[in-house]
């Protein structure tokens, strides 16, 4: 029974990871990453590592995708914000690369 569950979740993890790689849009990738975190948490649970599963669930499927989404939002907004998005005098505010996928 446990072997079947481990096999199924392994397939789930492989599928989700492949989907994360094949997706080119960072927003979709973040969502797929969240699903991958969930699948990994299930796998760790079935492999009798509930401590790791808890960490994976919290960090992998909640905090990391959220941080990616917020970063994508900031990076995408900047160039279109003020014309060409030239920062004046800032040290790290060069023209940020606009994501061409969208």
């Amino acid at each position, binding site marked *: 029974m446990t072997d079947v569950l481990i096999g199924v979740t392994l397939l789930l993890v492989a599928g989700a990871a492949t989907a994360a790689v094949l997706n080119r849009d960072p927003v979709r990738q973040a969502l797929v990453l969240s699903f991958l975190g969930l699948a990994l948490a299930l796998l760790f649970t079935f492999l009798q590592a*509930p*401590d790791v*599963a*808890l*960490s994976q669930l*919290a*960090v992998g499927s*909640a*905090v990391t995708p*959220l*941080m990616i989404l*917020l*970063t994508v*939002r*900031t990076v995408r*907004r*900047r160039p279109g*914000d*003020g*014309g*060409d*998005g*030239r*920062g*004046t*005098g*800032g*040290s*790290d*505010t060069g023209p940020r690369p606009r994501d061409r996928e969208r």
Partner: protein
Amino acid sequence: MSARGRLGLFLVGAAAFAALFTAACFGLPSFGAEHHPYGERAVRAALGHHTANAIASVNFDLRAFDTLGEESILFAAVLGAVVLLRQTADERRTPPAPAAVHPPVRRFALLTLPVALLIGLYVIAHGQISPGGGFQGGVVAATALHLLYLAADYRALERIRPLALYEIGEAAGEFAYVVTGFAAVLAGSAFLANVLPLGTFATLSSGGTVIVLNAAVGVEVASGVVVLLARFLDQAVEIVLPDDGAGGGRDPGDDNSDDNSDGTDDGTDEEEPT
């Protein structure tokens, strides 16, 4: 150093690592065998110190020094993110407009928030008995707080989240861990040794220093994640570059974003809240 020299140095290091790693792998007990030498020793040590969760015993008792290093890595990482994401001189804050939230989303988030927060605190407190501990519970509690961002909007989250307090909390968690270690030295034992009374097996007060270190890590991780997400949210929601022509780099004295934004800048609400 030339490219060829670098490659040579890398190959020497890689070859030495490969040889040592292979030798080490042959010294390991075979995978999935009947006999688990490390497991048996770890469980015996955990039971000897009245810690029901053997993983917590390994993390916070047998290898507490190792965990101190991991905690410090997180502390340094959050510190680095705070420095990188701080408000620069040519950026300004605009308070985000109130967001419209669908009632079902609001109800669900408000219902889940206290439950998730309680689960986080439970996981921290029961780290020595059941799976989990300071790190896991800390992340769950910190994430739970952000359900308010879903339920209401960013202003509501900022109101219940005095950021300065969480920054102090992060440092205090790290500090408490080190102090617990030195307390053991003062008690006449080694750094981070388990010197507290061990308590009754599988109760909330069992495990000696395990529960203290769990609490310290819980405070540090929860505060650290809150601070980290706050900086990311600040960048995504509040801090904007000035429009071109508005005189970039104005108000250079307002560069420190440690205080909560009170929106003293003229609030041109040019962005949608979520």
